[in-house]
């Protein structure tokens, strides 16, 4: 029963996963471009943000159509309303990949500090994004909670990068501008972790109806 409805919900999930893949690619490319000071690649990422925004509108349209045509209630309503919230966080993650690429354009060359930890932050936040979306689609509460716990690891990496940068400044190297840019890049990754955490919280809501402190 409600075959068409279930198909529409599956299409919504597929569109969300597709948007997640696009953003994951942008994050990983952004950190590679930053580390290698690959200006061309950074420009491609910036231009690609429009496609992510387009995918956001596509998901939004699917949600609106489902709300209008199926008048969802209970778990269906939670899933669709949560999807509308999730894409806002995803779109912000995409913006941060662009922000990081813009920093690459401003740097004079490959950064000399915090590089390993920035890569680790990119990998970790991509894992969080992928896992949170998988949890959303599969209504996997444990998987979503694991993502929420991972945010502490991202925060710890941010503090380490910050420590490295402070150390570099203290050492008297002439690196003030680079240090400021890299601290911003680290902050963007830290924010990506926060957005992925939000997505995981929406996944818990979609599956259970629990919100905020109830999770």
């Amino acid at each position, binding site marked *: 029963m409600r075959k068409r409805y279930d198909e529409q919900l599956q299409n919504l999930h597929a569109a969300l996963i597709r948007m997640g893949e696009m953003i994951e690619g942008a994050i990983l490319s952004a950190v590679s471009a930053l580390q290698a000071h690959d200006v061309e690649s950074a420009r491609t990422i910036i231009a690609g943000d429009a496609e992510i925004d387009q995918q956001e509108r596509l998901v939004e349209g699917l949600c609106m159509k489902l709300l209008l045509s199926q008048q969802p209630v*209970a778990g269906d309503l939670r899933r669709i309303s949560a999807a509308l919230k999730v894409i806002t966080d995803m779109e912000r993650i995409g913006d941060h990949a662009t922000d990081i690429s813009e920093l690459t354009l401003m740097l004079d060359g490959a950064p000399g500090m915090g590089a390993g930890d920035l890569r680790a932050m990119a990998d970790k936040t991509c894992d969080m994004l992928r896992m949170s979306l998988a949890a959303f689609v599969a209504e996997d509460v444990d998987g979503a909670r694991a993502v929420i716990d991972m945010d502490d690891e991202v925060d710890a990496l941010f503090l380490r990068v910050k420590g490295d940068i402070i150390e570099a400044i203290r050492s008297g190297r002439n690196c003030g501008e680079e240090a400021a840019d890299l601290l911003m890049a680290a902050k963007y990754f830290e924010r990506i972790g926060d957005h992925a955490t939000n997505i995981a919280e929406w996944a818990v809501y979609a599956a259970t109806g629990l919100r905020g402190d109830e999770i």
Partner: protein
Amino acid sequence: MTTKFSVQHMDLHYGAFHALKDVNLNIRAHEITAFIGPSGCGKSTLLRSLNRMNDLVEDCRITGDIRLDGEDIYAPGTDVNMLRKRVGMVFQKPNPFPMSVYDNVAYGPRTHGVKKRAALDAIVEKSLRDAAIWDEVKDRLHRSALGLSGGQQQRLCIARALAAQPEVILMDEPTSALDPISTGRIEDLAMELKRDYTIVMVTHNMQQATRVSDSTVFFLLGEIIESGKTEAIFSRPQDKRTEAYITGRFG
């Protein structure tokens, strides 16, 4: 909120058919309670037990306890006419009597002994006003009610129920035969009426239940599966069967 109806361990059989099984439910005063569930689940049967309409059904046997304001309505010696005066009913299909608008509304009060013209006029006007149909019929009170539209006829039937000055109004799918505009009017009306009355409504329309009711009771195969605040039932149902029914995946 005080409890208007209290149903405890109620079972109902139609002959050998066990139509309601160990029903336990409190219906709160000045709320709209929606009964939902697939056809044949027992929701109309319970509704009709609340003013003993099932007494008219042959082979109907009821055990357990149904109390209105704490009084057992199935106790020996209960005045069933008085019960039905306190607990009025509106049916799925508008069923005005083949008489004038005025006489339709005055029918109940006349039966209960109101004879004076002025008193009847006052009751008829108040009932028609409360049923949000006065402005549409005030100039045609003495013409046949059968000339009204379906939506007007249903509001007339609500006015007829109100004229008996009931405490509870039972509505059995009151809008299923009406167009969306008339449906909206009846829903608005129900929400107005709950200030003065307690309303119990059987509906097959999930959106209607979410729009108008305060509490929702889900029935399946003669049992209450889940009941609670409408918002909770339609956003976070606790039972998988409730979720499957309200999202249209069975029933």
